[in-house]
C-alpha cells in the first residue's frame, strides 16, 4: 500500500511549513522512542512519522513527493526515463505526445513498474537482503564484553558481544547482510543470542538466583560460609538462627546490566539448612540435653 506522508502527519496537502513542524512535534511527543521505552510499535510509528517529516520539511523533497508520490526518490530517474521514452515514441511514429503527461498518479505507476521490473528502463539500485544469524553463549560468556567470530554465508565476521546480553536479544550489524543490487548498499545482519541455562545459577532479569547449603550449627549459631559465584568466591555472613529457605540478597553481585558499565544486578542466595547425619551417642546425648532444656 502506498505511504501517504500527509496522512501520517494528519495534514492536508496544502499544509504550511509551520503546520508540518507543529504536527511532527505533536506526534513525536506521543511516539518518540525516548518517551516510549521498549515499545516496538511506538518505534515503528515514530520511524514513519520521522520519514514523513524529513521529506515534507524539506521544500525540494516535498516538491518531488507531491509530484511523484511514494516514488519521489526516483524522480530524477523518472524524468530521464520519460525523456527517453518520449524520444523513442517519436522515432517509432507514435506521435509527439508523452504517455506520461497529464499528472495523474496512475500514469507514473506504469513507468516506475518498467523501471523496477527491468523492462528496458534504467537500472535502479536496491539494498541487499538482511541476514539473520544466531549465536549460542553460556552464562559465563554473557557476563563479560567479548569479541566473537561468526561465520555468516561463508564470511567471517568479528563482533563485540556486550556484557549483560539477554537470552533472545537481537543486535543489528549494519552493512553485513547480502550485497546490494546494481551497486545498492548491503543489507544488515541481525544476530540473535541464545544463552544456555547454568546448572547452579538462574538469571532473572539482571539478578542471579542460586542456592547454598548451610550446616545446622552455622544456621543456629551464625557464622561465615564461602559462596562460589560466576566470578570467584565471596564470603557470606550467616545470621544466628537462620531459618531453612532464608533468602539473602547480595547487592551488585548479580549480572551486569546491558550497556551500563559497572552496574550489576543482585545475587539472591537461598540458604538450605542441612541436618547432620551419622550422630555419635555423645552427640545424641547433648542434643537430648538441649531438647530437655527447651522451655
Amino acid at each position, binding site marked *: 500500500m502506498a505511504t501517504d506522508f500527509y496522512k501520517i502527519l494528519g495534514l492536508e496537502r496544502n499544509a504550511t511549513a509551520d503546520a508540518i513542524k507543529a504536527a511532527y512535534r505533536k506526534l513525536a511527543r506521543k511516539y518518540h522512542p*525516548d518517551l516510549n521505552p521498549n515499545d516496538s510499535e511506538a518505534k515503528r510509528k515514530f520511524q514513519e512519522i520521522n520519514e514523513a517529516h524529513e521529506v515534507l520539511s524539506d521544500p525540494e523533497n516535498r516538491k518531488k513527493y507531491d509530484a511523484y508520490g511514494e516514488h519521489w526518490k526516483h524522480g530524477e530517474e523518472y524524468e530521464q526515463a520519460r525523456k527517453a521514452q518520449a524520444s523513442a515514441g517519436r522515432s517509432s511514429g507514435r506521435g509527439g505526445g508523452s504517455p506520461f503527461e497529464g499528472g495523474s498518479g496512475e500514469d507514473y505507476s506504469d513507468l516506475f513498474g518498467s523501471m523496477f521490473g527491468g523492462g528496458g528502463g534504467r537500472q535502479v539500485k536496491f539494498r541487499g537482503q538482511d541476514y539473520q544469524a544466531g549465536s549460542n553463549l553460556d552464562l559465563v560468556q554473557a557476563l563479560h564484553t567479548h569479541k566473537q567470530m561468526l561465520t555468516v554465508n561463508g564470511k567471517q565476521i568479528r563482533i563485540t558481544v556486550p556484557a549483560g546480553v539477554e537470552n533472545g536479544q537481537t543486535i543489528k550489524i549494519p552493512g553485513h547482510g547480502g550485497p546490494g543490487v546494481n551497486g545498492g548498499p548491503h543489507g544488515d545482519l541481525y544476530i540473535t543470542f541464545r544463552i544456555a541455562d547454568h546448572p547452579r545459577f538462574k538469571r532473572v532479569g539482571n539478578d542471579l538466583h542460586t542456592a547454598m547449603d548451610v550446616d545446622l550449627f552455622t544456621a543456629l549459631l551464625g557464622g561465615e560460609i564461602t559462596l562460589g559465584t560466576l566470578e570467584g568466591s565471596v564470603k557470606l555472613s550467616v545470621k544466628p538462627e537462620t531459618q531453612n529457605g532464608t533468602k539473602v540478597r547480595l547487592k551488585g553481585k548479580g549480572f551486569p546490566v546491558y550497556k551500563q*558499565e559497572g552496574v550489576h544486578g543482585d545475587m539472591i542466595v537461598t540458604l538450605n539448612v542441612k541436618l547432620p547425619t551419622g550422630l555419635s551417642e555423645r552427640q545424641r546425648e547433648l542434643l537430648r540435653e538441649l531438647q530437655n532444656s527447651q522451655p
Partner: protein
Amino acid sequence: MTTEELISLELFCSHQGVEIAFVHALHERGLLQITVVQDRSFVAPEVLPHIEKLARMHYEMDINLEGIEAISHLLERVERLQSDMRAMHERLRLYEEG
C-alpha cells in the same frame, strides 16, 4: 573519577548545539549531575546519552523544562515497571518449565 575522564560541558554543548543554560537548568532540577572543578563545569561520559535524550525532548519535541521534569519521573517509573514485569515473566517461565 579524575578531571581527565570528565567531559567539559562547554565542549559538549558546542558540539551538540545545546545551550549551556539548558544543561544547568536540568542540573538545578536534579535531572543530571554536573561536576564543577575550578569554576569549570564537567559531566561524566556516561551521562552524555541522557543529556542528549533530554535535549531531544526540548529541541525536537518542544517540551519545556517542567514537562521534561515530569516526563523524566514518569519514564523512570515506566522503566522500573517494565523491568519488574520482565523479571515476573522470567520467574513465571521458570515455574512453567520446571
